[in-house]
Structures are given as C-alpha cells and as structure tokens.
C-alpha cells in the first residue's frame, strides 16, 4: 500500500463492498439449494471474514498521516484518511465483528438473513468511507450509503408495525437532516467553487460572513439530526428500540457517533476559523441533550427505549467533551470525547445485546414483566449489570474513565462556566443511576424465573456468549487500564490539535 488513500480504497472499502455483494449472492444461491438457514450462515461467515480481514489489515498497516505525497491516482484524491479516521475504524470493526457473531444466533429465526448481512457490510463500508472522506460530496455519498442501509436494517423485521413506523420516521427525519447538510455544502460550493474541504477552508476566511454562517447552521443541524442532539433527537428512541437488537447496538454504539464525526470533520476543516463558536453551540446542545436524555429515560417503562434515551444522554457527554475542547482548546475535552465514543460503543452495545437476548427469551420488553429474568439468565443479566454500571459512570468501569476526562476538561477551563458544566455532567450521573439501578434490580429480583427457564433460557449459544463476554471484558479492563483504550485515541487528538493549535 503506497499511500493512505490507496489503502483506504483498496484495503478497506473494496473488500467490504465486494464482501457485501458476495454475501448476498452466495447466501441467495445456498439458500435456494439448501434451505434458508444455510444461506444465512454463509452470509454471516463472509461478513465475518471480510470484517475481520479488513480489521487485521488496519492493525497491520503501521500508521496514517496526512500531508504526505499526493494521491497515487487522481480519483483517490477524494479520500483523505488521517489518524482520526483510523481511530473511528478501530472502534467500528470490533463492534461490527461482535455484532455479526451475535446475529448468527439472534437472527436465526428470521428470513432473508443473506440481505441482512449484506446490508450490515454495506453499512460498515459507509462508515469507513465517511471516516476517510476528504471531500464534501464523497462524505455525502458515503453517508447516504450508511443511511440507506441502516434505514432498511431498522425496518428489517417488517412483519410487525413497530419497525415500519420507526423506519419511516427514521427515513424522513434523516433524509431531511442529510439534505439540509448537503444544502449547506452546496452553498459552500456555490461560493468557493471548490469541493475538497481543505481547499474550501483556505477560502473561508476571505468570505462574506453570512453565507459561511448559513452553511455552518445547515451543516450543524443537518448532522446534528444524525448525532441526535436534542431537540433533533426524536427519531432515535423509535428507531433504536424498534430495530433488531444487534442493529440497535450498532446504531447506538457507533452510527450516531459517525454522524457526529462527519460534523466534526467539516467543522475542523471548513469552519476551523469559527471553532470557538462551534464549541459554544456544542456546549449548549450538550447540556440540553444530556439532561433531557436522562430525565426522559427516567420515565421509560420499555427497557430498549430506556437504553435508547440513555444513548441520547451519553451523546450529550461526547458532545460536551468536544464543545469544551473547542471552546477552551482543552486536550482533555477532546481526549475525553473520543475516549467516550470508544467506551460508550462497547458499553451500549453490550447493554443492547444482553437486553436483546433477555427480551428475545422473555418475549417482552416491558421492564415490569422482566422481573427475575436476570436470575433465569445469569450471564445476560450480569452483562447487563456491567453495562449499566459502566454507563452510569461508576468507577472501575470504562465509562467512568472517559467521563472523568470530560469532567476534568471542564474544571481545567478555569472559568465558572467550565466548573458549572462539569458539575452538571457529574450531577447527571445521579439522575442516570435513578434508572440504571432499578433496571438491574428488576432483572435480579425474584420473579417468574421458572417460567423463563422453561423457554430454554438457561443455555445461551456460544455465538451469544462470545460477543457479550468480550464486550464485558473490554468494559471492565478499560475501567482499570484506560491507557489501553487511549492508544488509538491519542494520535487522533494530536491530529485535531493540529487544527485547534492550542
């Protein structure tokens, strides 16, 4: 691999998209000849092979730095992967691999799993493309790849009304969001005549004020919808709770973060001059988002909806980290934000996967009816407890470490606003305890465990145990050795600070 661009296109994107086609075709052929389950298994195997192969490639490839030689081929110029992109990829792939493994067991009753796995790989490719894109149109194209595949995945269980209603709401809201964003990008093109973010950035400072501001507004709201900033969040609880649990895990764990990442990308290049203002906007939205998400999660009776709203709240923490980072040029803010993306990805995926397993066996999502489910399914219950405690930010779990850095950044700002923000963030963890702890307690209080046991709840398949145990392990280990998780984060922070210049 000569250049990062070539590596990105040939090493990452090509295998993923070819894998998607392969998974679909092979799955289809096998299910025609040997029955549906075999086709799904083949598709799953191809998905895993593609994802794992690509991931290994990422790990083998030594490092990525921008500003090197020009792209090897002309059309690769639209990609500009840097350390930040590599960080996202390093979070995306473990998650996809674990979810794909989980899906083997979880989706075994569903029809058309060949399509499911193909869409899963396309979604991954979309995320990788967004991570590496260096050009506004490519960013949009890859974002739409990601969006379209996730629309279909949310509504995958179209037999019932809920995924369909949620799916339509998801489509219309996110289509509006991304079109607003591309409208902003179109304005940028209209005024600069350039498409590469770096080239646009070079022109921005000499512009009349207003068009840049209009573009900024449209881009922030457009991607704000994707990142579920309150009040742009309302599609999230519907979509994330109606989707199959594996997909919920991905949506909450990484897809909304990729939406935020796309905004970050534009902000860091095109709007680098306005970074302080962006920081302030992010701070305001972060405070609203986390408080709103936590309070409304407090009133939920559906476990998946509760987790979905908790994603809104956690997104608030991530945004707060970046907001403080931009506003005060704080290293800890950026590090905390990125690290929280990483830890939250595994915690929230763990919560959704374990909850999904419990829901599937218990046949209900209502918290009150899940009494005793954790006793009947000790592994899933314990995993859920680990995830919930981590999400609540209890020390010794990974969530505490990443939140700690975000708190730290606020205090380090040295102003009253910083201290207030951090205190609000800390106080929010009390509110979140108000729903995580009762959820854990409900799962473990004595209930209809005998009836649950009869449904074969006691013996989870290896395909469930492996991802759940792996994620629980990551959550616990990162709680004690945050340095392990900070490995991929630090180069990305350095990359961002090239722009912030603090």
């Amino acid at each position, binding site marked *: 691999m000569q250049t990062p661009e070539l590596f990105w296109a040939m090493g990452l994107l090509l295998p993923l998209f070819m894998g998607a086609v392969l998974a679909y075709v092979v799955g289809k052929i096998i299910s025609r000849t040997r029955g549906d389950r075999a086709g799904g298994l083949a598709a799953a195997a191809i998905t895993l092979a593609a994802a794992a192969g690509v991931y290994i490639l990422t790990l083998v490839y030594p490092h990525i730095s921008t500003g090197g030689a020009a792209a090897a081929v002309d059309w690769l110029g639209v990609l500009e992967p840097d350390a930040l992109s590599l960080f996202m990829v390093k979070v995306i792939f473990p998650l996809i691999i674990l979810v794909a493994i989980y899906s083997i067991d979880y989706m075994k009753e569903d029809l058309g799993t060949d399509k499911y796995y193909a869409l899963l790989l396309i979604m991954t490719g979309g995320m990788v493309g967004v991570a590496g894109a260096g050009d506004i149109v490519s960013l949009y194209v890859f974002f739409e790849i990601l969006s379209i595949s996730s629309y279909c995945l949310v509504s995958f269980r179209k037999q019932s009304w809920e995924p369909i209603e*949620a799916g*339509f709401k998801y489509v219309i809201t996110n*289509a509006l969001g991304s079109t607003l964003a*591309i*409208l902003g990008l*179109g304005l940028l093109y209209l005024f600069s005549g350039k498409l590469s973010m770096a080239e646009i950035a070079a022109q921005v400072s000499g512009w009349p004020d207003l068009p840049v501001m209009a573009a900024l507004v449209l881009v922030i709201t457009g991607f704000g919808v994707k990142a579920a900033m309150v009040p742009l969040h309302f599609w999230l609880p519907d979509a994330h709770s109606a989707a199959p649990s594996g997909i919920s895990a991905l949506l909450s764990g990484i897809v909304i973060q990729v939406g935020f990442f796309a905004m970050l990308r534009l902000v860091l290049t095109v709007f680098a001059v306005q970074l302080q203002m962006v920081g302030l906007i992010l701070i305001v939205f972060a405070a609203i988002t986390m408080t709103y998400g936590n309070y409304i999660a407090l009133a939920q009776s559906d476990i998946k909806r509760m987790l979905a709203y908790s994603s809104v709240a956690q997104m608030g923490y991530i945004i707060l980290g970046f907001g403080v980072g931009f506003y005060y040029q704080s290293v800890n803010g950026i590090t905390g934000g990125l690290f929280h993306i990483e830890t939250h990805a595994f915690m929230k995926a763990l919560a959704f996967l374990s909850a999904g397993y419990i829901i599937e066996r218990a046949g209900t999502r209502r918290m009150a009816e899940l009494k005793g489910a954790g006793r009947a399914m000790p592994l899933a219950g314990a995993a859920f407890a680990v995830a919930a405690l981590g999400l609540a930010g209890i020390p010794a779990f990974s969530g505490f470490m990443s939140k700690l850095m975000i708190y730290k950044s606020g205090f380090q700002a040295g102003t009253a606003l910083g201290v207030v923000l951090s205190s609000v963030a800390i106080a929010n963890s009390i509110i979140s305890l108000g729903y995580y702890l009762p959820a854990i307690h409900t799962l473990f209080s004595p209930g209809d465990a005998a009836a649950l046991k009869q449904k074969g709840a006691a013996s989870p398949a290896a395909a469930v145990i492996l991802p759940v145990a792996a994620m629980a392990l990551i959550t616990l280990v990162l709680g004690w050795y945050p340095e392990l998780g900070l490995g991929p984060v630090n180069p990305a922070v350095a990359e961002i600070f090239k722009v912030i210049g603090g």
Partner: protein
Amino acid sequence: MSDAAANWIWVSAAIAVIAGLGIYGIVARRNLFRMLMGFTMLTKAVTLAFVYGGAYWMNPGLGQSLAIIIIVIEAAVTAVGMSMIVNIYRHYGAVDTSQIKRLRG
C-alpha cells in the same frame, strides 16, 4: 456571459423558495407521500445550487457530475421511503401521520 448565469439573484431566490417549500412540505403536511415529495424538492434545490455553482465557477462538468450523483441518491432514498409507505399502509391502512403515532414517549 451567459444569460442564465447572470441571473444570480433570481436563481438564489428560486433555491430559497424551493428549499423552503420542501422543508414546509416535510414539516407541515400530514400525507406521507407529500412529505416524501417535499424531500425530493429539497434535493432539487441542492442540485440547483451545485449545477449553478458549476456554471458560475466555469466548471460545468464538475457541477453536473455532482448533480447527477445527488439525483441518483435522491431516487434511491425516495424508493426506500416509498417501500416503507407501502408497508405502513399494510399495517395501518393509512398514509397520514395523524394516524401513525403508536410510537410515543
């Protein structure tokens, strides 16, 4: 000097009007088809901006290619949205948002 490229005020106004009506169609109309139409109109405003930008910056090829890309994406999203509407109709027997509100809270 092209006649078209000279009328930048009018083109800007058209972009603003079409985009505004598109947003209005999505936000305020209750029929699902109309919402989807609002989305396609919004996208048209975007293509307009790109094509006009291409003409303005004397790079019509680029503007066009971007417009083509966006048009195809618009078609794909519209198709997915419409298959959702058909499924909604199967489940709800209605295509009006006032009746599609079981997911709440």
